[in-house]
């Protein structure tokens, strides 16, 4: 009785009233999530304008990238979860091939081989930020949860292969984030807590092995974190100046574009990795907490969508995207405030730079697709 069904009051209650709301729903866009993202990006542009030395040109540059990122979100939102799931192994496989190609023929920039030029220049590692959790979720989709040890080992291979390929570029920050996004999937899938704790213990000798294979500059970053004052003009300079910037901001900051640390070039990488310090200096604790609250809202909304997803793949992917976003926020803010080593992770949606923003927004597009195109629960 399709006619009778359409007259049910239940549907009219959830049916959007205004034209705008109808358009949003038809485009599979989630209003609250979009609102949160727009607020973060808007605030971000505001901070960035100050951080790039009030340059309109650079601000426009960033605005264009943001627009592209929102388009990517819109496109991703139109892809049904089933479609994404079917194509996941192919996409993942292509991503691995591209990562190998990067190591062979990639373009070198700033001492690392990260870019691939196939008509358009892009970083395959960025695509893998979505590719790895998608692949892990795909593998677990049909299987009984919680996953068994053998299954976990297969997923571990799926995670480790791209992680190592990216670490070889070298891009330690991205490789760790990609590994994290994969690990989040298996934790959310219900991997036994004993195993998690056991792996945590194994991580100690693992870290020791890692130390021996780390490059000197990477070791230096760790050592500097432990005692930044030993090398105030060298590697510790960034952290010292960043702490001065944030600390001198106080409760309400020095005011927009009035940060002396940022504007007098004391603060390095102020428009990219250290833009959080600019925010702290100019808007104080008040501004910093505002941005963190916006992030929390977006993450919370993402987790709400994950909990309400209707199949394993969607659920795991949505959860991983949301929590990986949190990892980004935590790693960057903890690094800028001197809690963890400088690992070169930008502040999501705020730092200057385009590639990671497109990936992030595509991820949020997938979240929206999962939420708006969910099937009825099979009973």
């Amino acid at each position, binding site marked *: 009785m399709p006619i009778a069904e359409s007259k049910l009051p239940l549907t009219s209650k959830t049916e959007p009233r205004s034209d705008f709301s109808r358009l949003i729903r038809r485009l599979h866009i989630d209003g609250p999530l979009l609102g949160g993202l727009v607020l973060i990006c808007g605030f971000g542009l505001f901070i960035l304008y100050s951080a790039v030395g009030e340059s309109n040109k650079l601000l426009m540059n960033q605005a264009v990238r943001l627009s592209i990122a929102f388009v990517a979100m819109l496109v991703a939102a139109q892809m049904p979860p089933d479609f994404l799931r079917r194509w996941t192994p192919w996409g993942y496989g292509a991503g691995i091939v591209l990562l190998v190609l990067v190591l062979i023929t990639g373009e070198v920039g700033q001492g690392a081989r990260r870019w691939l030029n196939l008509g358009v220049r892009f970083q395959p590692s960025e695509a893998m930020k979505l590719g790895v959790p998608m692949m892990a979720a795909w593998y677990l989709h049909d299987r*009984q949860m919680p996953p068994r040890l053998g299954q976990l080992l297969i997923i571990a291979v799926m995670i480790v292969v791209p992680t190592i390929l990216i670490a070889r570029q070298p891009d330690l920050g991205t490789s760790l984030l990609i590994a994290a996004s994969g690990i989040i999937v298996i934790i959310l899938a219900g991997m036994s807590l004993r195993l998690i704790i056991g792996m945590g213990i194994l991580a100690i000798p693992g870290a020791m092995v890692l130390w021996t294979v780390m490059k000197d500059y990477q070791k230096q970053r760790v050592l500097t974190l432990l005692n930044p004052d030993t090398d105030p003009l060298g590697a510790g300079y960034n952290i010292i*100046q960043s702490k001065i910037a944030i*600390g*001198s901001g106080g409760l309400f900051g020095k005011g927009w574009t009035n940060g*002396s640390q940022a504007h007098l070039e004391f603060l390095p990488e102020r428009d990219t990795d250290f833009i959080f310090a600019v925010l702290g200096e100019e808007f104080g604790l008040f501004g910093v907490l505002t941005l*963190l609250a916006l992030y*929390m809202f977006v993450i919370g909304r993402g*987790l709400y969508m994950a909990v309400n997803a209707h199949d394993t793949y969607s659920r795991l992917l949505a959860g991983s995207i949301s929590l990986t976003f949190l990892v980004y*926020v935590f790693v960057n803010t903890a690094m800028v*405030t001197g809690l963890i080593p400088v690992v070169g992770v930008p502040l999501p949606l705020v730092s200057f730079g385009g590639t990671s923003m497109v990936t992030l927004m595509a991820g949020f597009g997938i979240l929206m697709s999962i939420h708006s195109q969910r099937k009825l629960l099979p009973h």
Partner: protein
Amino acid sequence: MDLLSPIKDHHSERRLFVSRVLVSSLIALLLLMLVVARLVQLQVFDHALFAEKAQGNRVRIEPVAPIRGLIFDRQGRVIAENLPAYHLELIPEQVDDIDDTLHRLAALSLIEKTDIARIKELSLSGQRFRPLTLKFRLTEEEIANFAIQRPRFPGVDFQPRLVRHYPNGEAVAHAVGYVGALSSDDLKRLDSARYAGTSHTGKTGVESYFESDLHGVAGYRHLITNARGRQVPGDTSELLDSLPMDERPAPGSNVYLSIDLDLQVLATRLLEGRRGALVALDPQTGEILAFVSAPSFDPNLFAVGMSTAQYGALQNNPDVPLFNRALRGSYPPGSTIKPMLALAALETGATNLTRKTFCTGYFMLPDSTHRYRDWKPEGHGPVDLHDAIEQSCDVYFYEVSQSIGIDNMHDYLDRFGLGRQTGVDFGGERPGLVPSREWKRTSFRNPDDQRWYHGETVIASIGQGYMLATPLQLATATAALAMRGKTYRPHIVAAIEDALSGTRSLTTRERMPDIEISNSLHWDTVIGAMHDVMQGPRGTARAVGYGAAYEMAGKSGTAQVVSIAQDEEYDEEELQERQRDHALFISFAPLDKPRIAVAVVVENGSSGSRVAAPIAKAIMDKYLGYGDDANR
């Protein structure tokens, strides 16, 4: 769907997932709380500490050099000023290829090829954003030349700076001195805080002696600087608000000299092509009216900076233009001391006003055949004290010297200030020398040399032998003669003026102990004889004083540079120029109320009365208003 796999239990799966999400969210919240706690620690508890660090980061205190005081002559004409000049400067960090840039500048002859290595080294040391001066004080032509080429030289430009300028440099060089770039030795001597922003300091003369007055007090200003220590250009007004107040520099005091620029210029012209010196004093006050040493040099070279070649030329010039002859030149005074010795002879009773000596052209000590010759080989015939001064008879003084004795001679000459520093108000003067038995005993090692010989008294009586005097001392002694024993310490600074308030503190004349002469007739005789030297019928310099519109007095001196063997004929022509006698002349005018006393020394000038006296006369003419200019 894989039918072989166990049936998925969606409900328990979802429950598991939700519990994992909840745990993850909790962990996430904990992590974010960790960051928030850190932010509270930094921004609330440690805020004061970091705020101070941020302030210290960006504020740099930069010293601001004071403007150096000006120097004027007695009529308020500028002797030393500060002029804006354009220097060619290079900012190392803005130059891509330092070698190429310097070589191209050398090709335009804006710098010298030999300096390239030195400039390059300088550009590599020190802060890369601090400008480096390549060439001081560009000429108009060089400015125009470079202006066209400027686009080809990024990082090189000309900048205006205040530079010390001496408009009549050569004429005043030895009196005023000069400023030069601060050296590391200067910085050891001076208070580095006061000189933090200063580039030049007084090196000699008034510029050096009155440095503390001329320099002023440095101020400072607070600069907003970026991480590289460079001042932040453009609008930083909102950052400037919280800065402490700047301290403005206090300009140095202006110094008014007692010298007269006209006299300086005239004396410099009269001594042109000569080596020598002229000092003129106001006998009533001790003020120095003219102070010239020839040859001179251009003090602007030191203020602006000169090339190695230019400095080498000054250093290696055989006429030593940098040597201050007026202050440090020690010359045998020759017959110029005769008026003073005449007073000594009268006071000690070695002679009287009427006693006559018959001058045969030479003098012999008892028990000796050595002939002490008069300058006039045939002799002056019978001469009394007046005649002996007027005609400068040596024999009369040879004879009288034996009665006065060297120690009395020393005593009286010392009263006139010879043999000791005058205490003039700029440093570096030589004390000259008036010998005595005591001096000889303490100055020589060999016991034979420590004895005083009668023959040494004889030659001392005509200002030869050991005796030495500076032109400044001769002028001071002349002023004492003119004032009949009233003496004042010579000084060159007449007043010091606070540059801001304009209040002047005048230098008061400093009276020195009088020269006590028992009988004023002795003064009358000696001064009368000096008058006749210039305006008497038989005066040695009567040709100079003849027909003058005012009364003057003087005494010539011709001092031997090389001793002449006993029977050798004195032949001026054959002597090398540098072996000729020094020509000296002292004089003062007007006779009754002296206003100027002059001492002139012309090295190897042969004749005091013919060469030195006209110079002294011209200076007196000019000062008293009888000069060429005044008559016109």
